[in-house]
């Protein structure tokens, strides 16, 4: 009987290996198919700066926007901040921040210190909107079209290369419009 107990570690390993195997075929940088080309989930949260007000999807539908998920506890968010500032200065597309599982005061300090690339920030303190959105971790960036449909998701630091890819998609929309 006790000999059988010695097989437990092996069994546990098989379970783990099965998950890792499955994990390989999932690309964490990809949006779950459930949300791609679907509307941005409905929410009603306060903006970062004005705790007493409410923002909803209505506040950004009508034009293409980037929604950037960030938090002060996330070192990679600091890395991509320069890029976000550059995008907001170029005026090519507005950026909405989704401040994820963070503290209001820390987040405001951060924006004051590093500069603010966002039109406004959604303050998602308990991560519920992040959950609906399928946020894997900060930073993440979503591209929404004028109807508020999610068209692209980028996981991890928004590099200059990733921004070029996004620009190609946005340019594509412009050419259809004209």
């Amino acid at each position: 009987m006790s000999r059988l107990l010695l097989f437990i570690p092996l069994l546990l390993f098989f379970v783990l290996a099965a998950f890792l195997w499955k994990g390989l075929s999932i690309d964490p940088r990809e949006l779950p198919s459930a949300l791609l080309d679907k509307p941005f989930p409905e929410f009603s949260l306060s903006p970062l700066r004005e705790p007493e007000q409410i923002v909803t999807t209505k506040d950004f539908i009508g034009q293409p926007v980037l929604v950037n998920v960030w938090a002060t506890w996330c070192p990679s968010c600091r890395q991509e901040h320069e890029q976000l500032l550059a995008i907001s200065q170029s005026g090519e597309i507005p950026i909405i921040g989704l401040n994820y599982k963070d503290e209001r005061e820390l987040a405001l300090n951060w924006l004051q210190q590093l500069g603010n690339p966002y039109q406004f920030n959604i303050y998602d303190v308990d991560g519920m909107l992040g959950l609906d959105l399928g946020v894997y971790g900060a930073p993440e960036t979503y591209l929404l079209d004028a109807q508020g449909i999610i068209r692209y998701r980028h996981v991890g630091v928004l590099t200059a290369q990733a921004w070029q890819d996004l620009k190609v998609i946005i340019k594509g929309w412009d050419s259809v419009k004209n």
Partner: protein
Amino acid sequence: MIPEIGEFALIIALFLSAVLALVPMYGAATVNELWMSYAKPLAKGQFLFMLISFICLGYAFSQDDFSVIYVAQHSNSQMPIQFKLSAIWGGHEGSLLLWAFILSGWTLAVSLFSRSLPLDMLARVLSVMGIIATGFISFLLVTSSPFLRYLPSFPEDGADLNPLLQDFGLIVHPPMLYMGYVGFSVAFSFAIAALLSGRLDTAWARWSRSWTNIAWAFLGLGITLGSWWAYYELGWGGWWFWDPVENASLMPWLVGTALVHSLAATEKRGVFKSWTLLLAIFAFSLSLLGTFLVRSGVLTSVHAFASDPERGFFILMLLAITMGGSLTLYAFKAPNVKSESNFSWLSREVLLLVNNVFLTVMAVTVLLGTLYPLLIDALGAGKISVGPPYFNAVFVPIMGTMAVAMGISVAVRWRETSTKVVIDKLWLPAAISILCGLIFPFFYGSGFDFRVFIGISVSLWVISTVITEFIGKFRNAQSFSIKLKQLPFSYYGMMLAHIGVAVTAIGITLVSTYSEERDIRMAKGDSVELAGYQFIFQGTHVVKGPNYVADQATIEVLESGTFVVTLHPEKRRYNVKRNMMTEADIDAGLFRDLYVALGEPLNNGEAWAVRVHYKPYVRWLWLGGILMALGGLLTVADKRYRQSKAEPEDAYV
């Protein structure tokens, strides 16, 4: 030509390691001395060719050979030579080469320093290491050769190394960490060899003990260096992020710590044999799992610099063979007889078991937190993330409880200790540490703080029990100096390591409670007060580095009117990748760090956003890490291990 020699040397090393994996193993199984004796020369040959391969890559970097893809992607002609050389492990391919090179180094070391080992044991151990080397070198050659060329035309200059990595930290942190990771392969190989031969005596524990302690010490140093590097390089004063890659290094360290203790019990008392074997298997398996997590792209992380499903698949196969194979072997061959020795509930055996349970629970906690997003995702239940709050909430209470057990453990003996003796020994340290813990927050801070009370009390408890026990050793000693020399090195090592844990705990407690920071806009002449220090901004000027241009600020620090130090934080722009880097400047001290980082220029450079930190006792974090590692290394110098090398194998059984 040189890179081709490197590739070729790698292929020869692969053949040598494959022969090493098979021939001595077969020799041991058939008791063929000639075949077994091939192990040593093969280990040496394998090391030689890995060394050649490694030097070839280093040469390509030093000569700016940008026809080599890996060099072109990770170096640049403007980079200083020390960063060119450490860029060898600045990317996926090169760090794997470093991994395999260090493995061949450990294999060589085992073949050189194990004269006391019986031939069949040595043959099996080296063969198991040969199997691991075969796996990793073929991984290198098949999916990630660093010697591939851009042909026919190649870039004129390299793409430069990520500026975050152009730092002293890159030179020392990865090699130390890998020494630890890979070092656990020795303990693993000893465990497998013991299982194969069925000789699970205490001699096996004694042989693997010193190897395990060395690897454990290196891993601890590697983690400490990584934390210190993140602290000064990322520019915002954080020292631990619960990032998947940090967790990947913490898990083997935790299990390794359990192994170090469990091996002691197995060697001294012949108990917990099966458990020790399992820990040895898991310590190395978790190192491999860490490699898998970092390289495969299943988790996103700051460190994940090369993610590629094909590579992930290959590592998963290596992991499956190593872990699956060793655990199957374990299931069939591990001894399941009850230990013959008995011990009471208050004995060092039991406390070591408690320590093992706590450490294992911590490792599992970290593993779950790290893999949770992956598990949920694989179950199709959506994608979620686990932040630092989870880890802190689970980790801190377990750590605190374990520290209490640590204090008791040094006071009890093997087999049995009476409760009265333990209470007699421990009431004084307990009273002193609780009292100091109560007073400290009033004296140091502004009022009572529960976290500080707990943190300081348990840390002082660990220190005071070690010291009480040490003093107790001299009670019946005739001469102080003779007794001092009589105590084994491993005892001093234990003391040092335990005090290291306490020192780190004090650092963590105080820096996370009493840190202060301010973000402010500063123009020339502005000043700010923080924790009794006055920071005066005296403007910026442009300085030119070898491959960057920087705005350097001058900030003078005064304490009640007296000059303390002048700090020069920088905002750098690297020429090639055009990224901005914040280079913080720190006035380090044993009791406090003053940390200044530049944010953004405001009003066209008239003023700057400046972040000023006051970090009390932050150095203690790393000081404790160094003490732990020194303690681990000191145990290796113990007479027992040195003598056993010169004496016949059975002398100590």
